[in-house]
């Protein structure tokens, strides 16, 4: 058993362990002195230990004081059918027949924000400070600054953020940054009855995962492994997968997630080339005016027009 995080103390409140002064990245902003990632935290989700009870989903709604609409049955235990602006986390149920053993495997993956080290949402966001990445790796949305454009949705390689139809702001898992700031683990982790979700430093979680993978391999899951995709610089939510060689069988978990090259081009070269081209066009106009001066109508032009209109002979064009 992973040593549980102790309950909060009843002593006088402690100062927050991290806050707005501990930023590694800030959307649409250039930080004067970006702090390096350090003491990174991580949530480890061991899919092989998940029993699909959805205690994490309930705890997430409860801690964040949210309610999900009563839905309809869609032929699956996955409920609601997709992440919403209220459901920051969702158990996705997949019935998968293992071609090697012909056994039915019930793969239950807790979907939600992966807290990428290289966050596509943050890089796409046009509103300064609406998305921040703390030095401990947590990627968080500041809803006072969110403008509801949905660019984060396009930037995310995991299809996580959702824009509320009520207040037009984007929502996703915060990794319970408010709880972590006071030394607690995320609500989902606290609620998990099987320790399928554990929380600690990223180094601790990798160590713990190693033991779990060894155990799974000893039970015949030769492809068991850790999902910490390097394409996004690693994540601060990691999975232990029984079949780590094919993440996509877990309800479409991306095999090789990365920020889309289209998003990189849009937020990279287009931004600078675009401003440059517009600036050049304006400058070229100014230069042209300085060099050739105004194009003015001459008195002869007026005379010729009068003659033409009055039906009198006019000097030949170009003669």
């Amino acid at each position, binding site marked *: 058993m992973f040593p549980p995080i102790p309950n909060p103390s009843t002593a006088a409140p402690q100062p927050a362990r991290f806050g707005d002064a501990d930023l590694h990245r800030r959307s649409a902003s250039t930080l004067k002195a970006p702090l390096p990632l350090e003491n990174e935290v991580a949530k480890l989700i061991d899919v092989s230990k998940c029993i699909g009870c959805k205690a994490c989903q309930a705890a997430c709604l409860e801690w964040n004081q949210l309610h999900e609409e009563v839905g309809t049955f869609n032929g699956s235990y996955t409920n609601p059918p997709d992440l919403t602006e209220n459901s920051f986390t969702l158990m996705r149920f997949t019935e998968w027949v293992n071609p090697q053993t012909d056994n039915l495997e019930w793969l239950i993956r807790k979907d939600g924000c992966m807290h990428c080290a290289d966050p596509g949402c943050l890089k796409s966001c046009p509103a300064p400070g609406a998305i921040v990445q703390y030095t401990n790796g947590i990627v968080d949305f500041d809803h006072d600054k969110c403008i509801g454009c949905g660019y984060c949705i396009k930037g995310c390689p995991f299809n996580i953020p959702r*824009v509320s139809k009520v207040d037009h702001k984007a929502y996703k898992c915060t990794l319970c940054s408010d709880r972590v700031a006071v030394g607690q683990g995320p609500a989902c982790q606290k609620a998990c009855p099987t320790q399928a979700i554990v929380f600690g430093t990223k180094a601790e979680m990798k160590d713990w995962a190693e033991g779990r993978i060894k155990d799974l391999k000893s039970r015949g899951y030769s492809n068991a492994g850790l999902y910490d995709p390097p394409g996004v610089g690693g994540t601060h939510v990691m999975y232990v997968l029984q079949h780590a060689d094919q993440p996509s069988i877990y309800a479409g978990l991306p095999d090789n997630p990365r920020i889309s090259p289209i998003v990189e081009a849009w937020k990279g070269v287009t931004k600078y080339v675009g401003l440059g*081209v*517009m600036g050049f066009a304006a400058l070229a106009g100014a230069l042209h005016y300085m060099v*050739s001066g105004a194009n003015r109508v001459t008195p002869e032009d007026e005379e010729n027009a009068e003659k033409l209109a009055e039906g009198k*002979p006019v000097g030949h064009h170009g003669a």
Partner: protein
Amino acid sequence: MDELTRRPAAPSDADDAAYSIQPGDAVELGRPVHVNRYTVGARINHWVTAISLILLAISGMALFHPSLFFLTGLFGGGQWTRTIHPWIGVVLFFSFAGLFLRFWKANLWRREDSAWVARPGDVLSGNEEKLPELGKYNAGQKMVFWGMSLLILVLIGSGVVIWEQYFGALTSIPQQRIALLVHASAAVAIICVWIVHVYAAIWVKGTMSAMTSGQVSGGWAWRHHRKWLRALVRRSGPPEKAPAE
């Protein structure tokens, strides 16, 4: 006989420019001659489009580059900018559609336009005596017209795809990513076309009045759109008496 029949250009030349005459275009005799170029409807239509385009450019650039995000303040903040930008786009689309229906015929490409484009040096130096006589629009204006038309179609199409509030669910995220890149690139292009359009109106003196009072001077029409002027004069026929008496 008047000079129209004696000038060296082909006799069909003036009729050839008839395509570019639009409702309301007319020569007003006098000293100087005035030429009605745009009706009040066309001018209102133009300025609604122009104001929309400027507001779209400002609000769009605010969301395009972080250094310009402060421009959202002009619209009441980021949320308002995000809300209002697509609606202004809808206004622009329909307003420009009006302009398109008014102007498309006069902007059809003609043989003299190719000749005009082939002499960029004379165009940029304002040596219009060395350029062919033109109808209501020169090739530059026609390129602005068709460039705007095409880019507005691209912008409204890609814009709807990324209009999260109403249309976010209709397309896939990879499609929306492409739409974002296309929208941004087309916006840069249309702002450049707009700069050319505005600069040309500043450079060629006497042009602005066409979109304010609706009139240009006879000399302006003679200098820049002689074929159009000739066609207007020919259409109205020779005056019965000397004017302004």
